[in-house]
């Protein structure tokens, strides 16, 4: 895999779509190209994060610890960005990421990622957009879950119909 073909792949990543070629090249050059085999973990929930991952090829499971063991909350594929929260605001990893099958990612270190965000407004805006989108989804889900919970509670107090 050469730098040129990496840049072509990065073009497909929504977060980076607006960057010009030389910045993409720099990002690719300064980042590590990593291959994970099935069930190898990219990061563990609770660890401190020092890098974000951009999935180039393959799929990754997002697992969250629960009393019943790890629960698969979602699966991400090519073009998705994972793990950016932990490096944006110094919180421990919120989930464990595991390779589902062979997985190729670009590991963007915290330094390089922050350079991108602070150096190029386009990237920053894109990051905000993605986070906002996620927030919207989460809020919607939360509302849905809360109302479901209320329905359940009412059912419990009034007895089953």
């Amino acid at each position, binding site marked *: 895999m050469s*730098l040129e073909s990496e840049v072509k792949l990065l073009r497909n990543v929504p977060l980076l779509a607006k960057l010009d070629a*030389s910045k993409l*090249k720099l990002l690719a*050059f300064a980042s590590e190209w990593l*291959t994970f085999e099935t069930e*190898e973990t990219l990061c563990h929930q609770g660890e401190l994060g020092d890098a974000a991952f951009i999935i180039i090829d393959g799929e990754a499971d997002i697992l969250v610890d629960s009393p019943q063991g790890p629960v698969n909350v979602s699966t991400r594929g090519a073009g998705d960005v994972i793990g950016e929260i932990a490096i944006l605001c110094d919180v421990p990893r919120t989930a464990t990421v595991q390779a589902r099958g062979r997985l190729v990612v670009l590991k963007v270190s915290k330094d390089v990622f922050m350079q991108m965000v602070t150096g190029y407004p386009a990237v920053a805006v894109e990051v905000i957009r993605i986070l906002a989108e996620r927030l919207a989804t989460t809020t919607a889900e939360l509302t849905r879950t809360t109302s479901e919970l209320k329905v359940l509670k009412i059912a419990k107090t009034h007895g089953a119909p």
Partner: protein
Amino acid sequence: MSDRMEPSIYRYILKHSLRAQLLLLAFTLASMPLIYVSLEIPKIIINNAIGGENIPDTVLGFPVDQISFLLVMCCLFLTLVIVNGSIKYFLNVYRGVVGERMLRRLRYELYTRILRFPLPHFKRTSPGEIIPMVTAETEPLGGFIGDSFALPATQGGMLITYLFFIYNQDLLLGVAATALYPFQLYLIPKLQKRVNQLAKQRVLTVRKLADRIGESVSGVNEIHAHGTSRYERADIGSRLGKIYDIRYEIYRRKFFIKFLNNFLAQVTPFFFYSVGGIFVIRGDLTIGALVAVLAAYKDLASPWSELLKYYQMKEDIRVKYTQIVDQFQPSNMLEQALLDDEADQPQVLRGKVLGSNVSFTEDELVKTVDGANFQFEADQQVALLGLNGSGKDELSRLVARLLMASAGQISISGSNIAKLPESVTGTRFGYVGQGAFMFAGTVRDNLVYGLKRRPGVSANEGTDSTPERKQWIRDAREAGNSLDDRNADWIDYAAAGVEDSEALDRRALEICALVEAETDIYQLGLRSTMDPKKQPMLAEQILEARRELRRHLEESGSSDLVEPFDPALYNLNASVAENLMFGTARGSGLRTEALATHQYTQRVLREIGLLDDLVAIGSRVAETMVDLFADLPPGHELFEQFSFISAEDLPDFQLLLGRINSAGMETLSEDEHSRLLALALMLIPARHRLGLLDESLQARLLEARAAFAAQLPPELESQIEFFDPAAYNAAATLQDNILFGKRVYGKAHGASRLNQMVQETVDSLSLHHQIARVGLDYSVGTAGGRLSATLRQKLAIARCLLKQPDILVVNDATSALDSRAEQRVMERLLEHRAGNGVVWVLSRPSLASLFEHVLVAEDGRVVEQGPYSTLAEKPDSALNKLLQAG
């Protein structure tokens, strides 16, 4: 050795070199008649032998004629020249020897006195002042000491002889010749006195300057952090100006004295011409006599000026000597006996440690310990608590006998510890303080430092008998220096409870494990190189580990983690330079930059036809770098981390590329060629992924690799250690020797998985200990600068544990450890020393529960002592207050 040094340089000289001075004097005086004769003989040769007057008929009973007389006299002259020259040679050498021997003695004595300074004295004295006193300031003394008696004796003797001759010719003329002497003898010392004062000032100012420079070096971080270099330069500048002023003043006065002296010497002939002239005219004096007196007077000038020079030098030296000596006799110096006395038998400190009314005063003003009373058993584990400034720090140092109580005393089973010689305190007490000092040397040197109290007996026996060693001992004795052999084996193995160096290493590493330093040392070993000639066994084992790792990697399906060095294959995870050299550079002669500029590299590449291709690749690399980094501001982090080209070189390359585009490669200078080549040599295909090295290029590089090794000129052979699958590589670290390949880029968790594999391999072959032993050879750098602060503290504790002291005093010596590690180390250490004394100054009172006995210090006293449980039960105890506060 008495406690005061001799007050004047003359007394010092006489005390220590009377015999040598007398010998010098005797030889000098004995040589004078010979000098006289050698002046006489030319006269005889010219007047008698050549002039043909008064030729004796026989010499020593042999009949002679004019020619043979001349030859006899000439031979005599030649003999005298040789004899005189030899005497002069001998005298000069001997003078040098005497001076140097005395200098050696003086410096040694000064150094010994530094070791006897009471410790608080060092707070007031800086190394910047002491060092030049012992080294530079004493230097001129050596030259003077050889001359101190012989020179005034000879010159004075000559002066008197000439004066005697003049007085003999005519009393009045004699008076005239010396008429101005009283005046000179009165005036010159007066003038000299001021010069002496200035010289004194100069010495002090230079000392201060040395001190300030030392301070700038130690405080250089602060200077940069506060941007105060301008202030510092102004300070040094003003000091230099002061020295200049003093020196200028000294020159003016010194040469004025010289001028006056010369002037007066020239004035005297005035008397000869006038007074002598009148006498001759009157007929009271023959003209021949006047001429003779004038000639004698001319001769008089040289010894007189020599004496004056000597006088000025003597004054200068006298001032220097007293100024040095004054600094080396502080009050309360340690008794020499405490340093020297050896205990008759190994003494073990057991019984009650009792402090009664112990006080310690620093600077006569502040009483940091004020009438402290305490007691505990020498084999008890004691916690010493208190707030900062409570005196706990001084108390711990008083117990370790590093400080001497200014009032009261500390005794162990009844005997005052102030009277114990260091041979006892140095072995029976262990003290670790806040600053863990490391001596330049290896980790091992520092660990066994506490065992180096005296030279091993066996080592001395073998070496003392060689003639060189005997001569060395004679010289050392003459100069009052130490007679101990520094190269003997000083390590006291018995004190560490082991028999030989191998067992000592094992023991040292066990103790390091106790303070959690063993892993660090092992890691240092893994990253160190070692000489396979000295340790062929280990080299063999490492090669075994290399094979084992390969097997291990294959069995666990992880062989893709490492790309091994294969002579027949191009290694994609190694740089082009490594692939070309296929070896490790020793020293800097063949590091990538140097490799690119080396004639030999360029020749090999040219012959294969690769040179132009690689330069072209270099220019492609440069292009990419310019493309990637040109927009970034210089100093941007990404530059430092990822660019092949530094920010300041980037514009150069930009211009260079512009020229290549417009005019082609041909215009490149040789230097530019090499720079581009260096870029290509740095390329690691798997890491940089620039796609510049296709397979045909790789194949040609393999050809170049073979050629590079085959034609290697002899002068480069020592600069490179080739990769050989079957041989140990002395220039590479142990770890690289085990890996014998490059870690493959882009493997998830590759580094940690590989480390794990290496670890397992090392363990399966039981090599851990051997590698840690190599770690013991790691050089710690000046003051341990190459080690982390944490490791330094751990090693300082281990150093104390190794000598198995009866009482171990730990004074806030774990501050660099994190609090969990601190507690772990403390628990392990207390367990290790179960049944042996420990006094631990705690900064965290909560840890006191680990100890049997607790002392609480407050305002220089011990306000509370007893078992932890008893004190903790009392609600209003000082211990509880500390616990609540901290």
